Every structure is written in C-alpha cells, then in structure tokens.
C-alpha cells in the first residue's frame, strides 16, 4: 500500500492539530540544533528556562488570539485589540502607580472597561451595520490616541508588587503538580462520559485502545509540561491564566448556545437569522468577549513590564490575527478552534524566540514571520482542496 498525497491530505485536514504540532516539532528541532553549544552543555533553545520564557512570551498574544478566533469565526475582524490592550494596560498602570488603588479594584475597573469598549465596537458593527474592519480601524487610532493622552506619552512606573505577580510570578511546584493531576482526572472522566453518551445514541466511537492511547498521550504531555516548568521556577502565572482561558473558551465553543451560534452566524448569517436567532446580539457579545481579553492582556502586559508604556501592544492585533489563521481559522468564517489559535501563537512565539537567540536581525524576523503566515494559509487551502 502506498501513501498517496490524497491520503495525506485527508489525514491532515481531519487532524489539523496534529499537522500544527508537527510544524512546532520541526521548528523546535531546527532551533534546538542551531543553538547547540557543547561548551554550554547542550542546546540553548531546548531548556526549561527558555521553554518557560517562550510560553510567557506567547501568553499575551494567546489571550488575544483566543477571543480573536470567535471574532473571525463570526465573520468579522478586530484591528483595534493592540491599541485597546495598550489603553487598558495604561489605565491599569495609572490606577496602580499614581492612585495606589488596591489590586482588586484596578483589575475590576480594567475588566469592566474592556468589556464596555468591546461591546461598543460590537454595537457599532452589529446594530449599526458599520463594517467591523472600519469600526476597529477607527478604534485602533482612537484607543492609541487615548493612551497617549492618558500617559502623556511617558512610561508610568513602577507597578506594585501585587500587579507584577500577574505578569512575572510563578506558581509553586506543588500547586502546579496538583493542578496537573486534577486536570488529567477531569479529562479522563469527561472522555469516558462523552464516550458513553455517544454509544448510547449509536454514534461511532473510536476503539478502546485508541481512546486509552489518546489519554495516555495527553497525560504524558501534561506531565512533561508541568515537570519541565517546575524544573525551572514553576508554571508562570500568565501561562496559567492562558490555560484557564483555553479551557473556558473551548467549553464555550463546544457546549454553550452562545458558542454554537457564533459558528452558525459565521457559516451562514442569513439562515441563522431566519432560524429565529438574534444574530446581532451574538456578534455584539463576541466583541464584548474580545474586549475582556484585551483587558486581561493589558493587565498582563503592564504587570510583565512593571510599567504602563504608551506603545504597549503596538502590532499585537496582527500577531493575534496571524495566530488564528496559522491555527486553521477560516477567513470566510464558521471554522476555527481556540486550541488551534493558541498553537498558532506558539508557532509565532517560537520563531521570534529562536531567531532572537540565533541573533537573526529584526528585519529578517519580520520577513520570516510574514512568509510563514502566507505559507500556513496556503497549506491550509491546498490541504482542504479549495484551490480555484
């Protein structure tokens, strides 16, 4: 039996995530090999410390990408998230540094403002019919202008210890282990519950061997993940936040009415409207969720830098959008997963990190990232047989 390109295509389009993981493995192997240095005792890329840094670097893009997936799946786009991140981070810095607000107050206000700004953008798009490209292009300028006005164009520092923990802290090793164990048990229980449910309705299920193999693989990934991070300083707080977001958003996508409607709206807006769904509300809520993620990303950015800077988040919208597309989100809406977008963000972060380590000049880094984006989408189109 020969493996035809068609077989390969079918495999890759049904297991998109596997294809993405292979890409990551290739990138890591490449950088691991290139940064190998016998004097320093091995590869500099493949160390626990670098792995921890890499994840922290991707956390902020990942937060934005998690909600951007929903925006793109719903058939819209949001170009304002980088600026909104900057504005909300700036507000957090001002409240924390200049007014010495308690941490909880700062977080609450920033989150509420984020949701409010997001809903405003959503309202203009969904109810007033202004294309989201225009609304958010305007928002990009407005929010960036606002942060410049707010900070007077200077860095607001230093942030309080509490705020810094959000961006720079690590979870103690014991807690990391406990969470990993709890997560694994949860996944096992869910897997068997789903399996039982599908069997009850005579739906096809994979064989028990495959199921167990899958769970063992997942368990190994979780174990390796936590052990590696613990061997450095523990799970970074922003990474933990990102993982929680991944879990919650995946549940939203698969298990809630709201999530189902996002995909329906993106796949056929008119049919969904004619089914009696309030499609405008769905779209507005998606932008509200995007605003919430801008708030979390803004807080994390300020915490990580221990300061509010007027240029924070510049260009972050493009990284987030690129992550979604690399992660298999369809430009035409209706298709996309949160995990895919996060893997997309990880690919982008790996490229950044690896090339910086190799001392590749910045201009080359940009060129490479641009090429990878186009290449990823091209591969997606070829693998789904959608070429014109």
């Amino acid at each position, binding site marked *: 039996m020969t493996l035809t390109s068609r077989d390969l295509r079918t495999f890759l389009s049904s297991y998109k995530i596997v294809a993405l993981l292979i890409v990551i493995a290739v990138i890591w192997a490449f950088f691991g090999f290139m940064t190998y240095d016998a004097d320093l005792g091995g590869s500099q890329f493949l160390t626990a410390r670098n792995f921890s840094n890499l994840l922290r670097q991707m956390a902020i893009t990942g937060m934005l990408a998690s909600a951007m997936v929903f925006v793109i799946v719903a058939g819209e786009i949001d170009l304002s998230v980088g600026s909104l991140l900057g504005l909300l981070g700036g507000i957090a810095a001002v409240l924390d540094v200049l007014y010495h607000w308690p941490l909880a107050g700062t977080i609450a206000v920033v989150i509420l403002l984020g949701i409010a700004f997001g809903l405003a953008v959503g309202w203009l798009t969904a109810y007033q019919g202004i294309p989201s490209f225009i609304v958010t292009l305007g928002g990009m300028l407005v929010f960036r202008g606002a942060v410049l006005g707010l900070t007077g164009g200077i860095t607001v520092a230093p942030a309080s210890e509490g705020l810094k923990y959000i961006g720079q802290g690590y979870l103690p090793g014991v807690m990391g282990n406990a969470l990993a164990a709890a997560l694994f048990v949860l996944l096992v229980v869910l897997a068997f519950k789903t399996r039982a449910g599908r069997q009850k*309705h005579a739906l096809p299920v994979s064989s028990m061997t495959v199921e167990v193999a899958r769970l063992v693989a997942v368990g190994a990934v979780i174990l390796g993940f936590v052990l590696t991070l613990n061997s450095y300083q523990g799970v970074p707080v922003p990474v933990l936040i990102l993982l929680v977001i991944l879990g919650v958003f995946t549940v939203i996508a698969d*298990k809630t009415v709201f999530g189902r*409607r996002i995909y329906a709206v993106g796949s*056929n807006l008119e*049919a969904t409207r*004619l*089914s*009696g769904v309030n499609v405008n509300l769905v779209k507005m809520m998606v932008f509200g969720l995007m605003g919430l993620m801008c708030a979390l990303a803004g807080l994390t950015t300020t915490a990580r830098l221990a300061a509010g800077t007027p240029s924070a988040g510049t260009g972050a919208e493009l990284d987030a959008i690129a992550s979604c597309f690399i992660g298999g989100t369809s430009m035409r809406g209706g298709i996309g997963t949160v995990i895919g977008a996060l893997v997309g963000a990880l690919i982008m972060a790996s490229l950044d990190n690896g090339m910086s380590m190799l001392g590749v000049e910045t201009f080359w880094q940009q060129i490479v990232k641009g090429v990878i984006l186009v290449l990823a989408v091209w591969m997606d189109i070829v693998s789904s047989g959608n070429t014109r």
Partner: protein
Amino acid sequence: MAEALLEMHGITKEFNGVKAIDGIDLIVHPGECVGLCGENGAGKSTLMKVLSAVYPPGTWSGTILWDGEELRARNIRETEEAGIVIIHQELMMVPHLSVAENIFLGSEPTTRAGFVDYDTMNARAAELMKQLKMPDINVALPVMAYSGGKQQLIEIAKALNKNARLLILDEPTSALTASETRTLLDLVKEFKARGMACVYISHKLDEVAEIADTVTVIRDGTHVATRPMAELDTNEIITMMVGREMKNLFPREDHEIGEVVFAAKNVTVWDTTNTERKLVDDVSFELRRGEILGVAGLVGAGRTELASHLFGCWKGDSRGAVVLDGREIRVKSPADAVAQGISMVPEDRKRHGIVPLMGVGHNITLSVLKRFTRRGLIDAEDEMAAIQGEIRRMRIKTAQPLLPIASLSGGNQQKAVVAKMLMPNPRVLILDEPTRGVDVGAKYEIYKLIFELAKQGVAVLMISSELPEVLGISDRVLVMGEGRLRGDFPNTGLTQEKILAAALGKQEQVAA
C-alpha cells in the same frame, strides 16, 4: 416571408442526466417578434442561455443557424458581436457609472493617446437617447439617478449601440410601471418596423398578444406549438402552457378547519432599490386553524416579499398588521416571529435555509438550542435524543446525525430545514416553495407532513409556483399578480387555467 434570421433546431440541454429542454425549435425572421411563453421552469431561460452561449456549444445538442450559417459563438461577447443581444430580467447596470459610461462599457471610444474620449461617448449616447425618445436624459449623470424603468430603456440603448439584429427581452416589464411598459412596447414596435428581430419572453400575455407576430409555447422543456398570434387568443396560450395531466401525487387527508388564528392586514412592501415601487400592494387575508392556504402567482408577483414581511425579515420598507389570535403582534425580526409561534421555511435553501458547515443535527436544533441547556451548558445527550427523533420522524437519510448538512441531497436538506422550523412548535407555518429542487420521493413526504401538521391544527401558508402542487394540497388558494391579491378561491372545482388567468390579471375570470 424572407429568409429566417435565426433557426434553432432540436435544442436539447441536460443537467446531470436530466433534460432541462428537449428538442426545442425556435425560428425568427427579420422584423418579426416571437413571443416565447411557458410556465416557470418550462425551459425558456435555458433556451436563451444556449442561444447566448452562456452554455457554450458542446454542452448541448442541436443546431443553431444564424443568417443561414452555423453560429459558432463560444461566449456572450461573441454572440453580441454576431448581433444577438439579451436584456435580462434583472438589470445589469453599474449604478455609479454614468448613463453614457454604462452604454459604452467594454467598448469605450478612446482618443489617440489612449484616454477615454468622453466627448464622443457622451455625444453618441445623447444621440441614442433621442432615438429612444428620451431626449431629457442627461447621459453624464450616474445611472442610479434614474428609475428602474428608465434603466431598462438605457439597457436597450446599450443593445442598439452594439448594432443588435436580434433583441431578446426576458421579462422586460416585470420591474416597470404601466407608462414605462407602454414606452417599451412602442419602442419594440418601432424596432420591428426597422427590420430588427425580437424574442419577447413574458408572463404578461396581453403584452405578448400586442407585439408578437408568432407565439412559441414550451412546457416542461418540450416544444408544444408555434403559431401566428393572429390565430390565437390569450386563453388558448394559457391552455397550451398548462396542458398537462394531473397525477395523483398528493396524499390528501381530511383535516378539520377551525377558527381564524392568523391574519395579515393591508400589507404593503416596497422595493429595496427602487423605493417607489410596491412589490406587495395592500394585501390582506385570514388563515384558519388547520387550514392549508396555497399562494399562487407567477415569479415576481410579490409572494416571497409578502411572506418576508409576515416573518419580519424584509430588508426594505414594509407596512401592514400581523394578527395572531385576534391580537396584533409586533414582528420586527424572525426571532420575534419564532417566539410568537410563526415559522417560515425560506425559498432559497442554500442561502437562507442551511448552515452548511454544521451537522444536520445541529442545523435542526439551531432555533431551540436553549431547550437543551442545563446550567448554561448544552446537554449533548438530550440534544442528540431530540435530533435522532426528528431524523426518524422526517425520514432524513443521513449516514450520521452530525454529518455536515451540505453533503446531503437537496430533498434531505429540505426535510432538515423543515424539521428545524417545526422544532419551536409553530402555530402558523409559512412554506415558501417547499418542494423546489426536491426529488419526487421527498416531495411526497413533505406533502404528507403538511397534512399531518394541518391535522394537528397548525395553520399552513404555502407559497408555490407549481400549480399542480397548489391544487393538490391547498384548502383555499390566494392568487397574487403584480403585488396585488388577484383572487381568493376555495379549492373546489378550481383549475390551473383559472389560477393562471387570475394571476395574469384576466379579471373577468375571477370568481366573485
């Protein structure tokens, strides 16, 4: 008579093994106007697409002689170069370009430097406008400054500019007012006098009777007759258009008809682009519990627009009360309608019915998802049980409940869309062309379902362009024409001829 300008012989065109037209002949002489008549879907448009090479030679069989020689055009551009110009039902204008720019689109006169020669272009366009007796049109203004009717005449100017020898008009007056129609008919007569040939496709038989010299009738893709108009009257044309036997395709079942549950009062709907034009003009009707009310009429009669208003999904201006149980209700969106017990199965399944990337099951539950949630999360088991129940009840043939709906056949897709709109347990169900593009077997099942629903007391409003279907299913039939209610008949002793006559506005035949 002189040599024929166009001779089409034995034209046959198949789609996936189904003959859309089968052995049709059409002959046109210079200076002659041929009226081409047939019901919706009889094959008129297919025939014209063959002629204009939208379907290029090789995708159909038969011969086309143009000026006595075989026509070898491979695309629309080449047919236009030969002198055959089609004016479509929908306007093909670029609204923001000027009248002159539209007329010369694709053949712009240029200066020696290669720039568009606006002086020549505007002068020639103004000359054409004079020929069309519309000297007051400013050819430098954007086309959208003029009404739909004027635009139709500008289309004709475009055809004249291409030196057309055969003008094909496909339902040219469906978007025109009475006076605009008059101008157009007079123009066609003048063209005839100058020796231009013309094929006139219209449901408005009075117009055909006025300007056609010969009438060709086709039905179900076959040629019925070609006769001089002088020997015919419009009733004979109707009989030839319909003239097919009714087979017992309809599983009629007795059902009880109760009190009035639903009413539409003085519904008027305006066009979205030509906002002066009324697509539905002051239509009122009542619908009873357990009643199946058919709505017949030709394409463009305003039936879908009426339904859109009732379901709250018309995009333009519309007015008219919607009454449920004697109480006027607010229907501003489909969500309002569904919440109050009105469901609609839309006409265009692909665009408005299915959510293609989602599974059949998830399409079916789309409108009632909240029903399956426990503490904010969808209970997949509950949902799946409901989905499988519907798949069994509607006999939807799918390998798996969550297979993408786009991979199913048209009939099964339609059954899923109907299932979706029945999930909210509507009291009033609007079906817009429920069996379009559906195979015979699925049709039969949809009919059975309609009767079953009527038995359960659902009030059904069924829009259909298939007259046998309207007669086979309905308890009562509304006939619409040009936006107005042209008839309201109990379905006893009703015939296709009567409906068609009413739809065409032959008032003397409408029952009191």
